[in-house]
């Protein structure tokens, strides 16, 4: 019974999905490069990350415009409509994650060549979890996999846990040695940016569930 009646729609929406994935890749790389610049204390690389953020912003607007055009010209309904609306929401969260990666890069620039207060242990761990969540949530979006999205969202707890551990540790260091406050704050900003990235992926997971099932629910309250 099924006939290919919506080829124009399907083709255009496939293009949007590809660009959402591309946006996710750019931001995934930005997060990865921001950690790299921190570990290597590479302010040149950090400056490049800040500059490259423009491309992310541009692609986000491009996707939003394509979604608007698709709604206006193809009148999607039901799960098609939900998927387009979800794409519009998801690209906002991805783009904001790019801003958080930029935030880390700017901290690296601000740190200059001041020595790190402590070795980086939990921060790389946060990056690893966040990047995994981002990549898998986009795959779940493509697969319309609500169960996977729910599972991904639970991993935000690990990020929150690591953030709290970093926060407590840095607070303790600052209490003991107030002269360390500036250097501790750099690491705190970095961890905070990563914590926010985890929240953004949770938002994406919520949108994947909405696109797949129509349910709107807040995850990880």
């Amino acid at each position: 019974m099924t006939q290919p009646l919506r080829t124009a729609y399907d083709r255009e929406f496939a293009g949007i999905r590809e660009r959402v994935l591309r946006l996710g890749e750019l931001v995934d790389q930005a997060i990865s490069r921001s950690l790299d610049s921190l570990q290597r204390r590479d302010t040149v690389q950090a400056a490049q990350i800040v500059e490259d953020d423009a491309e992310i912003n541009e692609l986000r607007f491009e996707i939003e415009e394509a979604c608007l055009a698709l709604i206006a010209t193809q009148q999607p309904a039901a799960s098609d409509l939900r998927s387009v609306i979800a794409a519009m929401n998801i690209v906002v969260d991805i783009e904001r994650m790019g801003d958080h990666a930029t935030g880390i890069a700017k901290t690296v620039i601000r740190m200059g060549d001041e020595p790190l207060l402590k070795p980086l242990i939990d921060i790389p761990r946060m990056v690893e979890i966040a990047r995994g969540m981002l990549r898998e949530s986009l795959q779940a979006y493509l697969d319309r996999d609500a169960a996977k999205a729910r599972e991904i969202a639970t991993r935000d707890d690990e990020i929150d846990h690591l953030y709290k551990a970093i926060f407590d540790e840095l607070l303790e260091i600052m209490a003991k040695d107030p002269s360390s406050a500036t250097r501790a704050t750099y690491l705190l900003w970095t961890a905070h940016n990563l914590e926010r990235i985890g929240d953004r992926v949770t938002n994406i997971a919520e949108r994947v569930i909405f696109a797949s099932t129509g349910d709107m629910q807040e995850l990880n309250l």
Partner: protein
Amino acid sequence: MSEAPNHTKIVVHSLDFYYGPVRALSQVSIQVLEREITALIGPSGCGKSTFLRCLNRMNDSIPNTRIEGTVLIDGLDIYRPEIDLPDLRRRVGLVFQKPNPFPKSIFANVAFGVNALGMASSRLDLDEVVETSLRRAALWEEVKDKLDEDARGLSLGQQQRLCIARVLAVEPEIILMDEPCSALDPIATLRIEELMRELKERYTIVIVTHNMQQAARVSDKTGLFWLGELVEFGLTSKVFTRPDQQRTEDYITGRLG
């Protein structure tokens, strides 16, 4: 602030309809609330027009047809033998796909049913009914200075509103519309849709349409017919965003037709 729920105007229970040996409707059950717009969608031949015509017994005149099940309007079975058919069709008016004005003046078109049913007691009375009906059909301002002109001189959109005025003149309770905009341009279509929203303040409307966006725009409830069955029926806002049935999903996303 929740309003009191509307009274149930039409109750159809386990309706089957046959053209000869062919079953065109099977086990259709639906409840239509008064002062709501109910849209029926589905591919050609799915039974939605047949169903609509069961609601004022317009199928009675088609030979070799048979109906089973019940259709209640205000709790009364309209298929009982003692039902007065002209009165039923006065209460349950039908607007057709193509505007079908009589080859008479605009005034005479609106007055036609009123005269035929002897509903007006004087010419003054009739004038008032015609004006009120044309006003409710959002046509009065456009035709008030040419009521004696031939109705066929109106644009198609105006003709369709005239046909609606003709239905309104005999004081119906329910208005059935069978693809009322399929012959109209987009502006005339939007005008009819606006009119439908005004009319639902007073009347219960059931519309059959091929235009899914029209169903989404105007109706409170939407029902999907498929191969003679009512596959899904519910709030329009839900049917077009989160339908319960896969078949509805496939139909409204254009993946089944």
